[in-house]
């Protein structure tokens, strides 16, 4: 179970120490200033003081309140730096996982053909996340672990941590990335090493459904955040009964009706903005030209065909 | 505006200071582009090298000379009006304007050539180039384009100066506008002094 402030990674302690240091000093000084102001307003009120003193400064005081805050902020800087430095020093034995951010879903690629929408990690193992963006900036934020780095296209950013508490924690996207930015969440699930090994080799458990490989591809690429399978409208049109249906689409040339067979479906994935289904907005979906490759496209079409036939 | 309205009675030092501050903002405007250039050059040294070979250093050099000479003629026109020789001043400004025209002509042919080679942003040829080269041409068009815009503005300013010289509104006693126009023109020159080596020379 997760509590608000308790840290669940090896990095949390140093971060929290910096928090505590800065907040304590801030608290003391803020209170001191407020009390002083109230005291002044009462004690030197116009009713009492008819003859204000006319002094204009004091060099010793000025030096004091330059030097003392300087020392304080340098200490704050020090705590911050000490808490931060280990975050950039990834231990060489860390297990690499690629976090893929796209509008608007995370997927975590373990390399071995295992792609998951939640981040499952073993307890007490160093984990290195390689951050990869498919479209715009995202931010990978795991509050309980005290880690956050931006996921920027064209850049190879990374972060690492070692989970020290078992449980489920939130993953957020902290860089504004459009319509469903706030829906771009996931879970970190910290499990025992043994359970983790089991989970990793079990390709079925998290979405890899061998008899429906197309669905696996859809899930792995986050398509289902915007397209439902049950006919409800999320952000894009639903996939329900798609194959073989008639679509009214808007193109640059105007409105037209097309039949949703293989070609249309592939076109809509590779270049979604050329033909936009009427009633939906252009530009919300990025082209998947470089993302979903030939074989996977066929799997998707195959999946659509089969699920339409079932009905 | 009636006489009691606060009028623009600007003495020369005040006016000149305003102009200089404005020039500072212009410098930082181009400064942003220079930062982009510097970063991109360190990222793609090879591509920048290749792309810069496409530019014609000869046209660049010609334009440098044209601008330098024009800079001198404006400076001299100021000397002329200070010495109370308005006709010489007008003539010199006129030469400056002609040089500005020559500069723009060169620019026109240079750009036109690039366009005929389909080397413009978003073109089909451009899309096939390596990233750094696309960036180089992007910067090239943005920087020279913005600079050309400044040449045009400077030209308009100097034209106004010329007419005011003719009508005697600018004279030996009052030539603030001419001074400021000249300052602006020198800035155009100053920026080109950096653009020329960065875009045309260093390959």
């Amino acid at each position, binding site marked *: 179970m997760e509590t608000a402030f308790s840290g669940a990674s090896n990095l949390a302690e140093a971060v929290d120490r910096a928090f505590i240091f800065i907040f304590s000093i801030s608290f003391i000084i803020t209170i001191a200033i407020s009390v002083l102001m109230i005291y002044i307003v009462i004690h030197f009120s116009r009713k009492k003081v008819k003859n*204000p003193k006319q*002094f*204009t400064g004091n060099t010793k005081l000025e030096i004091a309140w*330059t030097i003392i805050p300087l020392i304080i902020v340098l200490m704050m800087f020090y705590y911050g730096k000490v808490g931060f430095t280990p975050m950039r020093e990834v231990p060489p034995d860390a297990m690499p996982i690629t976090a893929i951010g796209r509008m608007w879903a995370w997927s975590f690629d373990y390399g071995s053909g295992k792609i998951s929408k939640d981040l499952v990690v073993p307890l007490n193992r160093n984990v290195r996340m390689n951050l990869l963006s498919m479209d715009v900036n995202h931010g990978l934020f795991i509050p*309980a672990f005290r880690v956050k780095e931006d996921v920027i296209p064209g850049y190879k950013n990374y972060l690492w941590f070692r989970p020290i508490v078992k449980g489920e924690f939130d993953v957020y996207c*902290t860089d504004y990335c459009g319509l469903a930015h706030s829906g771009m969440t996931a879970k970190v699930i910290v499990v025992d090493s043994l359970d983790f090994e089991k989970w990793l080799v079990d390709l079925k458990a998290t979405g890899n459904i061998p008899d429906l490989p197309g669905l696996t591809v859809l899930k792995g690429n986050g398509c289902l955040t915007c397209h439902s399978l049950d006919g409800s409208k999320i952000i894009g049109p639903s996939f329900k009964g798609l194959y073989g249906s008639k679509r009214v689409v808007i193109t640059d040339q105007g409105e037209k009706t097309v039949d949703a067979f293989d070609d249309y479906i592939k076109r809509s994935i590779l270049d979604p903005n050329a033909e936009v289904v009427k009633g939906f907005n252009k*530009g919300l979906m990025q082209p998947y030209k470089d993302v979903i490759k030939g074989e996977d496209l066929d799997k998707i079409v195959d999946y659509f065909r089969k699920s339409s036939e079932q009905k | 505006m009636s006489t009691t309205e606060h009028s623009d009675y600007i003495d020369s030092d005040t006016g000149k200071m305003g102009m200089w501050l404005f020039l500072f903002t212009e410098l930082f405007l181009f400064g942003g582009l220079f930062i982009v250039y510097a970063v991109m050059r360190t990222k793609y040294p090879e591509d920048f090298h290749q792309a810069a070979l496409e530019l014609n250093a000869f046209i660049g050099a010609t334009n440098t000379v044209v601008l330098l000479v024009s800079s001198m003629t404006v400076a001299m026109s100021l000397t002329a009006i200070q010495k109370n020789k308005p006709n010489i001043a007008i003539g010199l400004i006129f030469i400056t304007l002609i040089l500005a025209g020559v500069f723009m002509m060169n620019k026109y042919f240079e750009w036109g050539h690039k366009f005929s080679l389909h080397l413009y942003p978003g073109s089909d040829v451009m899309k096939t180039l390596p990233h750094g080269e696309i960036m180089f041409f992007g910067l090239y068009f*943005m920087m020279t384009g913005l600079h050309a815009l400044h040449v045009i503005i400077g030209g308009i300013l100097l034209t106004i100066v010329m007419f005011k010289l003719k009508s005697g509104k600018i004279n030996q006693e009052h030539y603030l506008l001419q001074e400021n126009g000249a300052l602006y023109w020198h800035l155009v020159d100053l920026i080109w002094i950096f653009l020329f080596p960065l875009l045309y020379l260093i390959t």
Partner: protein
Amino acid sequence: MNYNSSPTAPLNFLNHKTGLWSWLSSTDHKRIGLLYLYSITIFFCAAAVLGLLMKIEKFAPGETIMTAQTYNGIFTIHGIIMIFIVVIPGLAAVFGNILLPIMIGAKDVAFPKLNLFSWYVYITGACLGLYSQFAKGHVPDAGWTFYVPYSAEVNSNIVIALTAAFVLGFASILTGLNFIVTIHRMRAPGMTWFRMPLFPWSLYATAWIQILATPIIGITLLMVIAERTLQIGFFDPALGGDPVLYQHLFWIYSHPAVYVMILPAMGVVSEIFPTFSQKPIFGYMPIVFSSLAIALVGYFVWGHHMFTSGMSYQARWFFSLLTFLVAIPSAIKVFNWLSTMYGGSVDLKPPLLYAISFIFLFTIGGFTGLTLGSLATNIQTHNTDFVVAHFHYIVFGGMGFGFFAAIHYWYPKIYGRMYNIRWANIAWAILFTGFNVLYFPMFILGLQGMPRRYFDYDPKFQTGQMISSIGAFILIIGLIGMISNLVYHVRRGAIAPANPWHGVTLEWQIPSPPPHENFDEVPVITRDPYVFDNPYTK
């Protein structure tokens, strides 16, 4: 804008000419200042209502009163209006315009026509901002920071919004330019640099930031426009561009811009504390030089907005260190203000109330700024509600309350009328309470991990969000109370004397409202700005 009914017999800048056109064509710095005041107030109210709408939406998780698309559009235009249209021009364009020339003993600013021109540029920019909301297509939804690649790709009226920000930047540059030249060239005889009051000093520091930082954002926005319209890929990774470079360029301007907001507010309270304590400012020189130091060092800390962007380790700690250093001049000022009141004859009138709450809110905002500036803690708080709370505390609590302090201080000077003091005190109390109820919970939410720019949230955040939303309603009551008091008494207030607070700077030596030409004869200054040699309290 017809002040004919004003019974103040002598002609002044408000009534010497009448009719709308006499205002729209006036090159009088005081009238231009008022034009800014009215336009800014209108935009502030509009954007504040948008803020309230966001809070209502967030009262409960899920969709309550608007869709995600609307929410994203609203925080974008809320940010654009508040930053570019309200607080950046804010104090400088309103009170700087009205008071700077008077306080340095000048008849007007150096370039009066340019001054009027900048107002028109400003209005053009502001209208473009509005147009982006109503033009065909989607409202812009990239946040006020316009981060690429999103802003370069999304299909909404981004180009209009970018152009608006560009034009507004131009207005800001022109104002800054005007002020620098005014201060250099127009000071009255005897007004040496160090006899200049502190408000003009703060404007001077501000103006330098305005002219040296704004062009950078100008060119940056132009590059994004070029990217969208001409397909030049400066920032698009698919064309070799660099999204992080955009962030550098954006913050090279936008960090110094936050000091454009706060420095004039610091100048205002530096005027208010001496007057209401009937005592010279404590540490005149340190305050002057800390303003200049903030302006200078503030130019080099922009990277603290990008600590998680994958910057190099060296850059991160360098920017963190400089961020901490720039806090020192602010600390110096706070202590000097406190010492100014200490030993004085303190009169707790509304301007002082606002000035004191300024210190309180600015301190909280500043310390949370330090939390954000420290590397380890920034990683946790970046782009969460903690940042939102930080900047509302420091922008609204700092600059906003500074603005309210200024209007309560100079109101009798500008209009020659007095607002109702008790009414003002009550409004202040509600405003202050509402403010803290609204924004304080956001610190805690942020620490718990609530990200910003979130339309929807995890139900575990609901308590905090609800308290915060309630605060917004308290705040709105206070704000309406304050504004209505001021508006109501413009015509109906009691006639104010020329110097109701017994101030000693030049603006208090001329009638209220000031005459069209400010001074009958050019004043000659023979002493320091804050000499209360004959405190009226004696």
